[in-house]
């Protein structure tokens, strides 16, 4: 069933699946078939954007990036959260996105169900807290690399014995790992026990200038000189600088992710996910690549945890409940595991919606649960499925049509 993909497909932003063994080949018509199934032609916008001349595309991307950085200053009426500081909410969403990107490597690319991802997040956060304030006073520039190193090591330590275990068991073993990390922190005096750790170092501030926020009156915006954000002052009250920091990290991770995915490593992950035995027979050392995926995921998880701790200034084991791991997995799957844009969208849904509707505090988890059921049932491929999945659906439909003799050729 494998024949080379036409270049148009492989060059797309989420493509790069040259080695996919089960992917079918119906490049041109596939968009049409799947869109008929889902009701409208979802590829239209993407095709139009791709057709634009390159400088225009770059301009659009640059505008979008600027818009993302400016979000906490714009205070756009409906999007902005009425009950909590919008900068803080944006940071929360950004850290969800970061975590989701990390988990996506484990879950979306390598296909390993990790229900203990919060463990890596906790390792990163605790490294910063313990070495930055509780047991030592290292500088923040030292702490972030250390946090990442420690969480990567913990990923390798967890992965080395458990990745030999079959897929479904991996879920429960990793879930256990997440709990072990939390309980260890809870029961060890050296790690702050239940009281937690205060005065976690914040990123070093430089105060260059102040940026005013916008203020909205109906649909007209004013520049509000009374409400300003000091550029790169990492304090307690104004959280926008933390959001900028996290956003910058996200862009770096996105770049690295893209390079990994399009490399030999990315193809090996995909092959392993689709059929481990076949991949092994083709000479892919699957265990090593799974371990690498785990380490990459742990790296990003630890980074995100470290940022979380230095934003929060205070951590205790309560911040790393098991439920968080499950929310992370939900973010990845709801968005569409394997597609970085989908995963980002999923993380925004999972991170932002509960914050936006904090006014309905009591009911939000109930609504969230129902929303998960509905999303899973009516968008089983995720909000933005990876291209390969779309092609696979199209191929399945084609096969079915042939079997039933109703092919429309």
């Amino acid at each position, binding site marked *: 069933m494998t024949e080379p993909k036409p270049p148009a497909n492989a060059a797309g932003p989420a493509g790069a699946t040259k080695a996919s063994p089960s992917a079918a080949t119906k490049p041109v018509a596939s968009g049409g078939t799947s869109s008929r199934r889902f009701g409208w032609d979802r590829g239209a916008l993407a095709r139009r954007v791709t057709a634009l001349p390159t400088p225009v595309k770059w301009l659009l991307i640059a505008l979008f990036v600027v818009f993302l950085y400016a979000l906490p200053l714009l205070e756009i009426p409906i999007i902005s959260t009425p009950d909590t500081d919008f900068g803080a909410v944006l940071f929360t969403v950004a850290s969800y996105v970061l975590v989701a990107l990390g988990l996506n490597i484990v879950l979306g690319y390598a296909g390993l169900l990790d229900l203990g991802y919060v463990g890596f997040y906790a390792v990163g956060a605790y490294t910063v807290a313990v070495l930055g304030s509780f047991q030592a006073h290292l500088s923040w520039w030292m702490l972030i690399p250390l946090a990442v190193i420690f969480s990567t090591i913990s990923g390798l330590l967890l992965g080395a014995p458990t990745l030999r275990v079959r897929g479904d068991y991996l879920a429960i073993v990793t879930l*256990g*790992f997440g709990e072990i990390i939390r309980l260890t922190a809870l029961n060890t005096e050296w790690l702050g026990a239940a009281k937690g750790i205060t005065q976690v170092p914040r990123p070093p501030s430089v105060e260059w200038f102040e940026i005013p926020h916008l203020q909205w009156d109906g649909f007209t915006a004013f520049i509000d000189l009374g409400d300003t954000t000091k550029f790169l002052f990492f304090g307690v009250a104004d959280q926008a600088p933390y959001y900028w920091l996290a956003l910058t990290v996200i862009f770096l991770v996105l770049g690295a992710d893209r390079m990994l995915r399009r490399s030999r490593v990315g193809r090996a992950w995909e092959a392993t996910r689709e059929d481990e035995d076949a991949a092994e027979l083709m000479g892919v050392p699957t265990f090593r690549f799974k371990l690498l995926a785990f380490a990459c995921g742990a790296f990003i998880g630890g980074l995100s945890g470290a940022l979380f701790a230095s934003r929060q200034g205070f951590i205790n084991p309560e911040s790393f409940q098991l439920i968080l791991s499950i929310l992370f997995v939900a973010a990845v799957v709801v968005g569409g595991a394997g597609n970085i844009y989908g995963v980002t969208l999923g993380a925004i849904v999972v991170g932002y919606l509960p914050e936006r509707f904090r006014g309905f505090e009591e009911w939000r988890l*109930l609504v969230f*649960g129902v929303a998960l059921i509905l999303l*899973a049932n009516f968008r089983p491929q*995720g909000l933005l499925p990876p291209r390969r999945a779309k092609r696979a659906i199209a191929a399945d439909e084609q096969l079915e049509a042939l079997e039933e003799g109703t092919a429309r050729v």
Partner: protein
Amino acid sequence: MTFLLNNFVELTVTGLVLGAVYGLVALGYTLVYGVLQLINFAHSEVWMFGSFAAVWVTVAIGAGPDSGIAVAIGVLLLALLAAMVVSGAVALLIERVAYRRLIRLDAPKLVTLISAIGASFALAEIMGLRDRLAESLGLRDELNSYVRSARDNTRFLNPLETHGVFNIGRYTVSNVDIIIIVSALVMMVALDQFIRRTHTGRGIRAVAQDSEAAALMGVNRNRIIRATFLVGGVMAGAAALLYLMRFGVTRWNAGFLLGVKAFTAAVLGGIGNVRGALLGGFVLGLAENYGSALVGSEWRDVVAFLLLVVILLFRPSGLLGESLGRARA
């Protein structure tokens, strides 16, 4: 170490009691896994709803610990029935709402897991918000004794008085201990026979073995899936009452940790293996008790998960192996 040796009998008996509850809940996981190869994440809420059904029966009847033995047994049987019916119904509801469509679409496993997680959240929250729900239905006052302090612990007044029956060493084994362990064993044997001998049981085994071939042989797969959920739910309902008899409190989010432990027990015994579920439950209960006696009770859960990791490393498919279909053809 001396603490462990001095209290060995007590730790063993309470470990077996806990293990019996784990084992009965684990059955739900293991059956559904055997048939569908899916982790039924919402099964913990099935157990939780059963425990509330049992509590509500005792509240409705108003039986306290001082009523006679005949009344007590009657109330307990009624509570057992209510817990089984409610748990079974909730399990069927989960199958209908969270699973059926996805099974028909043959959706990826992960998506089904997310759907089950959503169902788990929603069910737990419904129980946690039951006072608000009653309020919005205008029944707050009529239902007050059932729905008050919805987010706190709900106590179960055991109508059967706990009293010692016989001594082993320095520990007095109580009637409740005996009832729990014996009923868990009885239910396990009954389930084993059900799967081995009845028409439906054969269907369950057939679907677990090869669902397509079973369908070709005339097995109604959807009916079998429903039966599997129902049986798992009924067992969870029984486990809920037994748990309450020993531990006496439940709450809206009590299912989560118990569910994780029960799933661990199912994996320990070999997921998909009915006998393995009970064995896994007992092993887990005992290990937790001995472990917490050795290193302190705050490490209880750590011991449980470490045991799981170690056993999976040396026996990657659990203690008894995974085989709902292959075991007894």
